[in-house]
Each structure stands twice: as structure tokens, then as C-alpha cells.
């Protein structure tokens, strides 16, 4: 009954079969995806019937000072399983990722929130502007170096 959680290795192998250049590796719980390939990986994860990740639970960005991790939690309601994939962006300036808005519209506010608070820009999002803070606010407050 309980949902099955995909191990990182399992997911990365499934991804590698179709998109070999997208997968960078895996860890215990998640597959690592090349930042530029996030969009393609997202479409594959959603549309491939043997994966069927049609529900995007959440997107999280984590600031590790030298680099940022962006974590995607996915669920398939039909198959009742969950998976996680991550991507890593190096640097602190001009960070950007392909938006998954067109794949999962549920990413809308979460991507805007990450841009607002963490400063990771999502290319292809139709309305990429600050969500919590006002226009013209300087800095991204959830970064470790803010304050």
C-alpha cells in the first residue's frame, strides 16, 4: 500500500537508457541530472509510462555556498511511487536552470519563489518575477550570505 521510493541508482539507470547525456550520477536517494538537461529529463520522467511521474511535489534549492543544489520531488499517483532528482549549479552569480513550468505547471510559484529567495533564474518561465518580496528588492534573502 505504501508508496515505493525509487533508489537513486534505479532512477538514474532508467534515465540513462533514454537520455544518457543528462545523467551525472546518483546517490542513495536521488539521481543527479545535468543542469542543462533538466527540461528534457522532466518531460521524459512525466511522459514515459514506466515512470509516469505526473505529480511534482516540490522544488527546493539549497545554498551550499560554493554551489546550489536544486531538488525535485516527484510522485506517480497511478503507479504509487516517488522519486527524487537533483541538479547542481556552481557559482553565485547569474545562475539559471531550464524551467519545468511547461511540464508541471505546479512548478509555477515554486520556481518564482526560488528565484525570489535563492536567486536561481528559471529560463522559459512565462512570469519570472519576485513572488514574496517586492519588485526592486536587492539580494536573495534565503542565501547563506544574506545578512
Amino acid at each position: 500500500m505504501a508508496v515505493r521510493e525509487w533508489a537513486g541508482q534505479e532512477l538514474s539507470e532508467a534515465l540513462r537508457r533514454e537520455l544518457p547525456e543528462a545523467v551525472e550520477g546518483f546517490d542513495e536517494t536521488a539521481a543527479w541530472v545535468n543542469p542543462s538537461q533538466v527540461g528534457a529529463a522532466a518531460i521524459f520522467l512525466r511522459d514515459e509510462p514506466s515512470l509516469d511521474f505526473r505529480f511534482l511535489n516540490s522544488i527546493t534549492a539549497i545554498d551550499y555556498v560554493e554551489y546550489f543544489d536544486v531538488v525535485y520531488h516527484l510522485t506517480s499517483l497511478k503507479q504509487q511511487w516517488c522519486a527524487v532528482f537533483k541538479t547542481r549549479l556552481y557559482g553565485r552569480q547569474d545562475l539559471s536552470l531550464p524551467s519545468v513550468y511547461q511540464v508541471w505547471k505546479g512548478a509555477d510559484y515554486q520556481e518564482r519563489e526560488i528565484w525570489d529567495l535563492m536567486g536561481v533564474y528559471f529560463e522559459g518561465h512565462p512570469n519570472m518575477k519576485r513572488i514574496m518580496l517586492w519588485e526592486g528588492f536587492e539580494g536573495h534573502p534565503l542565501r547563506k550570505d544574506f545578512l
Partner: protein
Amino acid sequence: MTIRTEPMTVNVGPQHPSTHGVFRVRITFDGEDIVEVEPVFGYLHRGTEKLAEERNYVQVVTLTDRLDYTSSMINNQAYCIAVERLLGVEPPPRAKYLRTLTAELQRIAAHLIAVGFFVQELGAFGTPLMYAFRSRERILELFEMLCGARITVSYMRPGGVFADAPREFWPALDRFLEDFEVEFAEMEQLLLENEILMIRTRGVSPIPPEVAVNNSVSGPVLRASGVNWDWRKQDPYDAYDQVEFDVPVGSHWDNYDRFWVRIQEVHQSLRIIRQCIEQIEPGPARLELPLVLRPDPGREAYGRVEASKGELAFYLVSDGGIAPYRCKIRSPSLINLTIIEELLVGWKLADMIVSLGSIDINMGEVDR
């Protein structure tokens, strides 16, 4: 003769009587019909995620109370489950039952508010809302017995609950269940088959299941769209694998179904509470954990529960310190708002308020 008309843009909120807090939607109207919607957030943004990085693991519990302040017990529960997964510990069985029981009481309280305000927004002046608040008050009194607070309870802790329920709690709970049966039946009688309520909500703003899933909608809104997805069933946490309950789903996906699903969930919550009372056994109510928790560095945990608004999850990342390195809150209220365009565009001003009420947002959780 042609009459020249032009669309009119209205700022609904942040000081509008029925936007559930300081929420603002910029709406363009063509007459009374909505042609464009743009939600504006942030009026209640308190930086909870940042604050959580400055506090140790136990202190963060008090922050979670202030997210969705109508269901603080469930917020506590979600956070505690996340911390327990991070530490790799399990609370004792009595604590699990106490958590399930209080979470279900809180769910009833939250759904009562949702239903009460939903009907208030339909224009029923206060009466159903007051009926709902009468019962909710009793639940808050029960919480006061448990932890001394009514809204910001902070009752749960990583590893269990703050303290076992006092002896007088159980008879009071029995009395409440007995009275609530009658009170809730009264409310259902007033609302469920109400002709005006039916014509105002039936067929209004249907959200097809595919759209709901693609928009990451969760909770009663998702279930009203015909998807029987409930994390209490799919990923049973605490004592939910020990109790029996059904999942109500809608078949028309409209405002009425969202209202109906909440009413039915109250019944299911009552069932769960009764089973918890039967099954609970004496024992410790809290795991002995150090006061300052230090999970192993590099660990991460995604703790989720089915909150009254939907899937509430805390994604915690540890760097081995006494505070979470990152504490992401997946707030159902914010993400359920993604469907706002599908929900409102093409419908009338009067339906807008009702549809907003039917997804039951809470600004404390939307803005965090």
C-alpha cells in the same frame, strides 16, 4: 447604437473581507465576468525558512504553529516526522496514537473553518459560520487541556509529544464526540441539501483531474477532482496504518464537491478518532532524545503529512549542526493556488470569492 465598454481592473485585497487574510488578486473584469487573474503574494511573508536555519531542531516546532494557524497540530506533526526521519528514530506507539488523534481533531477544526467560511462567502450571514465555530471552540478547549495553548499548540516534539494527555482529557473528549455528532448533524441539515447553496456551487469552476495533477494540487481539492489520493493511505505515518477510514472523492470536480469532500472528511476523522481511543495503550509518550539534536551531516529527509489543506512537507537538510541547514516547507496552500486561473477565469465576481473559499487557502502558509 453601440455602447463602448472596456475591461476594468480591480485589486481584490489585500484588505478585502473574504480573501482569507492579506491576499491580493489583481482581476480584470469584463462587466462581472473575469478575464484575467494575477495573484500577488507576500503580505504575510515572515521568512520562516530562514528563521528555521537560526534555531535548533526543537525550537523550530514553534515556528510551524504559525504557518497554517488553523491546523497547527498537523504542522507540528509534519515537522516532527521530518526530524524523526532525519534522525532515523521512531516515536513510541502511544505517542503515535496521540499524534494521530490530535491531528484528526485539528483536521476537524480546520475543515469546520473551511466549510463555515465557504458558506459565509456564499452570503449566508454568519449562521453556518457560528455553528462551525461552536464546535471548533470545543476542540480548542481540548487542546488547551493537552498543552495549555489553543492555536499555537506546539504540542508535538521530535520523538513523540510534549506530554501525555491529562486524565481529565479522555472524558472531555468523549463528551465532545457525543455533542459534536448532534451539532454536526445540525450543520449538515442546514447546508448539504440547501437549494441556494446547490445552484451557487454545482457546476461552478470544475477542475479536471489531469489539470489538478499537473498543477500539483493536493488535499481535498485534488480529491474533489476525482483523484483518491490521500497520503494517510498511500504513505501511512504515525498510527494511520492501524486505523480504517475511507477517502471521499468528488465526481463533478466543482465547488460543491470541494465543500462536500470536506464535510465527509470530518466524518472520517471522527471514525479515526474513535479507533484511536479504542486502540491506544498506556506507555511512554515521548522518546528520550537529547535536548539539542545533532543529526549526521549530509543527511536529508522529506517528511510529509496529509494536512487539512493538502500535502504539507518539510524537507530538512542537516550539516551536522544543531539547526537545520535548510528547511524547505512545501506548503499546500501556496501550491493549490496554482490553479487559480483555471478556477476563476470565465466565471463571475460572485463565483470568484466562493471558488477561492473552496480551495481554502491560509495566508500564514501561503506566504510563510
